[in-house]
């Protein structure tokens, strides 16, 4: 059954190569945020939905990490968990989230609120839904500033105006007096981004912020996000299902499947030489990578229901490399200082 022998082995280029195949798993590293073995479960009537079930990653200052996966893989819940805004019946049941060295899991609500929107900000997927339709933009921006700093309304207004200009909104005074419905989708997302930037956070979690937008506006926003991280040193977690976005934007990538991180590492390394069969399939199904006229590659089957997920590798039912071994918990394989995958049968060749 061993495939390793007949294929050209992928050799990581960096200096940490010696760690390959090491038995002890190194802990995720990063100076801004370290998430370790995070478990966020939803206790529904039908049973326990393990939306996030053992996710680990780290992120450092100025770094952009792409958090990639299909719908329902737990990306968004991971983001909400970091901010501590998981709605019931959801609950963080295990693991740790350390932000600038401070443990956020179990932190009391008042302390958490001081971090939320101030040190860690979040941008949501649908710009049509993130702004309160019955409140004016100035109200929604000023309250975000005054929730964290004792400043006058006038000072808060000036700050709001300044940030709107920064995200490319012309005539901010007029815009501040408007209601959300008077804006286009792209404009609303810029406002949402501006709100995230108001308090100069150290970490921004962007949950598919460009999915609902036109391609041209998407490109502008991506460009601005990248620029922002370079200039201010803000760490950015960019949640998306779009690999092309990650390829252009992120420094690192973390691929999630059924509530787990299945593979992560440097973005070029992972995209050029995916190890986990899921990542492999995912990259294979990006249309631009396929030859014209050839049928697109696809991953067979569907995402499994997270309700009462059986133990073992969740991808095995869709995996062409699966064996009986896969009914057990797959090991975390480490290749290089930053490269890991959870699999019994990883690929060591590039995508075909």
């Amino acid at each position: 059954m061993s495939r390793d022998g007949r294929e050209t082995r992928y050799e990581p280029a960096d200096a940490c190569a010696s760690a390959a195949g090491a038995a002890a798993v190194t802990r995720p590293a990063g100076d801004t945020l370290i998430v370790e073995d995070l478990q966020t479960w939803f206790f529904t009537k039908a049973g326990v939905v393990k939306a996030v079930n053992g996710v680990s990653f780290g992120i450092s200052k100025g770094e952009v990490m792409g958090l990639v996966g299909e719908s329902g893989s737990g990306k968004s819940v991971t983001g909400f968990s970091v901010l501590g805004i998981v709605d019931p019946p959801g609950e963080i049941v295990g693991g740790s989230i350390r932000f600038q060295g401070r443990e956020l899991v179990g932190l009391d609500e008042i302390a958490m609120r001081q971090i939320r929107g101030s040190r860690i900000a979040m941008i949501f997927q649908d710009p049509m839904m993130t702004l309160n339709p019955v409140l004016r933009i100035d109200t929604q921006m000023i309250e975000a500033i005054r929730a964290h700093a004792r400043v006058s309304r006038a000072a808060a207004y000036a700050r709001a105006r300044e940030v709107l200009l920064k995200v490319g909104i012309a005539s901010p005074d007029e815009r501040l007096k408007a209601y959300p419905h008077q804006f286009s989708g792209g404009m609303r997302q810029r406002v949402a981004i501006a709100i995230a930037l108001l308090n100069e956070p150290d970490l921004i979690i962007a949950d598919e912020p460009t999915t609902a937008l036109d391609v041209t506006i998407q490109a502008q926003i991506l460009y601005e996000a990248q620029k922002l991280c370079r200039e201010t040193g803000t760490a950015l977690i960019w949640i998306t299902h779009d690999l092309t976005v990650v390829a252009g934007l992120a420094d690192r990538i973390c691929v999630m499947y059924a509530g787990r991180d299945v593979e992560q590492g440097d973005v070029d390394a992972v995209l050029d030489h995916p190890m986990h069969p899921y990542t492999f399939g995912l990259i294979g199904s990006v249309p631009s990578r396929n030859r014209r006229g050839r049928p697109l590659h696809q991953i067979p089957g569907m995402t499994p229901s997270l309700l009462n997920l059986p133990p073992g590798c969740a991808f095995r039912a869709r995996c062409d490399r699966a064996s009986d071994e896969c009914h057990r918990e797959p090991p975390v394989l480490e290749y290089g200082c930053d490269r890991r995958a959870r699999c019994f049968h990883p690929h060591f060749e590039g995508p075909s």
Partner: protein
Amino acid sequence: MSTTGEQARQAAAIAQSATVQTPLRRFLSDFFESKVATAAVAVFAIILFIAIFAPWISPQNPYDLMVVDVMDSRMPPGEKSLTGMTFVLGSDGAGRDMLSAIFYGLRTSLGVGVMSGIIALGIGMAVGLAAAYFGGRTDTLIMRVVDLQLSFPAILIALILLSILGKGVDKIIIALVIAQWAYYARTVRGSALVERSKEYIEAATCLALSHRRIVFRHLLPNVLPPLIVVGTLQTAHAISLEATLSFLGVGLPQTEPSLGLLISNGFEYMLSGKYWISFFPGVALLITIVSINLVGDQLRDVLNPRLER
């Protein structure tokens, strides 16, 4: 090979669950999941039984002048009559046993409520389906009338009608039907329009099925769930409305007292502390309406899949 085995197992599991869960069974199990709703159904069954069999289970016939003795009037609960019968819930101003009067009153109240509900439902359904199915001018005209009527409260419409028509069981049923048909029509039209825009109706039209077949075999079954919910809640409302109108003295005549009229008759005695003549019919009315409303609420929750439960 392990993959195909897994898929086969999954397929088998799906097939099995499909055979066990017929829609009716799932509905019943969802419905009786709530203890409150189960209790409400039981209570309503008892009330229905009393209403139907009132002449056979009442201690006396309260409207048989041979049995009722004015000497027994205004007896508090537990007292014995001249003939030795115990007034469990006391007696009224004419010496009638309150328990028997309540049993008979339930019969009248439920009868009027259910009857008017069924007729209003029938009319509303026909009109609503016609509006939704034919659309265009028919729809506009019908819905103008419905909207106009719904902008006036049912009690006002019923009051006015009864002030023109006069008292009587038939007249109050007419008034309740006219006051209520529009609710049904709006409900039916609303859900029929949603269904009509779906593709399967378009498919049925393309197959050149007859109007009648499309309306009755395709539209109607899908309109039924909301109609059942509205029907239940409206029936409770009709019973309450009838009681109110009878209390105001414009509903039923004294010869056919409903619970509302019993309460009204006891009003004058209440100020002198003889509470039971008004109180117990009120409790009976309350239990009836609450049990129907609880059933209706649970029906709405169960039949509306959008609602998070």
